[in-house]
């Protein structure tokens, strides 16, 4: 049987650690992260596999995987890791790297959610849920998906209830320092320098 040999490429690990540190290299594959993770059922790679592949420099599969996007950032893995690997924080760093490198996102609605939220905050300095929720539903195609699956009726009922019960604000608030917020959110993307 022929065996494919893997040439470890340590650049990915170095690049990530420079932005961290996340101590990914300390992982000894005990799988405590995966065993405690609440969303493994929706993942294509288990958290321990992501860490292992990062160590082995498997850039492509790691940046393309669904796992980093379905991670709920619940921090159970980071909390329980015996080697203090910051797993959840590393997942965030991988997401950011995937976006920067233009890697297609396997869960586009998750990325749209984040982008819509940040552009909403950029406008006024605070999140205005009214336009955030509606823009997200349109941009992500969720509205269309719900229309097709017929779940839109339930969503519409819920939206109406929220409005009726006074839980949807009708007018946004703008802060005085919105320019500062805008500046924070428009900084040029650059790789982190270690300082």
């Amino acid at each position, binding site marked *: 049987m022929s065996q494919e040999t893997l040439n470890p490429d340590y650049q990915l690990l170095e690049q990530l650690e420079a*932005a961290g540190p996340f101590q990914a290299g300390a992982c000894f594959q005990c799988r405590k992260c995966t065993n405690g993770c*609440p*969303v493994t059922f*929706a993942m294509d790679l288990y958290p321990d596999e992501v860490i292992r592949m990062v160590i082995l420099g498997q850039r492509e599969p790691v940046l393309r995987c669904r796992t980093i996007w*379905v991670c*709920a*950032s*619940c*921090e*159970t893995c*980071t*909390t329980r890791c015996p080697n203090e690997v*910051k797993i*959840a924080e590393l997942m*965030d*760093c991988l*997401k*950011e790297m995937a*976006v920067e490198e233009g890697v297609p996102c396997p*869960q586009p*609605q*998750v*990325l749209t*959610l*984040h*982008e819509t*939220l*940040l552009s909403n*905050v950029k406008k006024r*300095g*605070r*999140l*205005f*849920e009214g336009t955030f929720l509606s823009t*997200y539903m349109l941009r*992500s195609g*969720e509205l269309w998906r719900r229309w097709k699956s017929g779940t839109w009726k*339930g969503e519409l009922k*819920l939206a109406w*209830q*929220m409005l009726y*019960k*006074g*839980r*949807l*604000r009708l007018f946004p*608030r703008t*802060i*005085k*320092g*919105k320019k*500062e*917020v805008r500046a*924070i*959110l428009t*900084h040029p993307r650059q790789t*982190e*320098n*270690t*300082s």
Partner: protein
Amino acid sequence: MKVAYYPGCSLEGTARDYAESILGICASLGIQLEEVPDWNCCGATAAHSIDHRASIDLAGRILKLAAQMPHPDMLVPCPLCFNRLKTAAQALQGDHHRRYSVKLEAALPKIWDLADFFATKEMLETVAEQITKPLEGLKVVCYYGCMANRPPEVTEAKDFEDPQSMDCIVRNLGGIPVPWPYKTDCCGASQVLSRLDIVSRLVGNLYDMAQRVGAQAIVVSCQMCQANLDMYQGKIEADWGRRFSLPVYYFSELIGLAIDANGVKKWLSRHITNPFPLLRELGLWSTHPRAHPHGTWR
């Protein structure tokens, strides 16, 4: 007593019930909340997911404003905001602070998770003195979620796998906090908008366990948990093919109920899963004397 207060964006909108209940009980207990002036959004999950630097700088701006206030304590009701503020405080005072544009000069106030603040000995005593309607017979599970506790290096939580703050609060009010194993299991948070199927499964597990341990309701301190558990209960019941009928109360609403604060009815009526039948059944919701401004007909 005067404290700084960072409400966060959702308390201005979907979590209005939480916001009003906090203002209501603080007014009754003599705590003056002073909002951080001109506060901004902390960036939430979106910023820490795809723009790390902005996530620290956004929260950093809030910290900078809070540091200019004269108060030594800052209360943060939203656990995600609390977590982001604590993370930023650590990052901006740590080895890599030069990566970020915000510079902290003045000393920071102590950042409090709201439930932790109300579980301090002094606050429990202050509340106990004012209890007029103890929550007798109310069996609940306290659900803490993720962000107020994890990771403990950031939150400085001690009992991060088995937190006690809300259990202490409920016991103090005369209720029965039932022990259960899912206190800090994730509800899926913002995935409710992008992957409702994930949230349905996670929250369904919570309901199922709450029922198995014999709880009549769930108590929360997080408006994201409240939204996922309260707003989507009907949908999740349909997915699971079961009735759960579990009201989801904020701990602040229960304090308000026990000390008979003004406005309890208004807060609770904003819930989607009806919170009143259980209270009526237990005799904790009698017709309010205040509801009849002209007195009784007798």
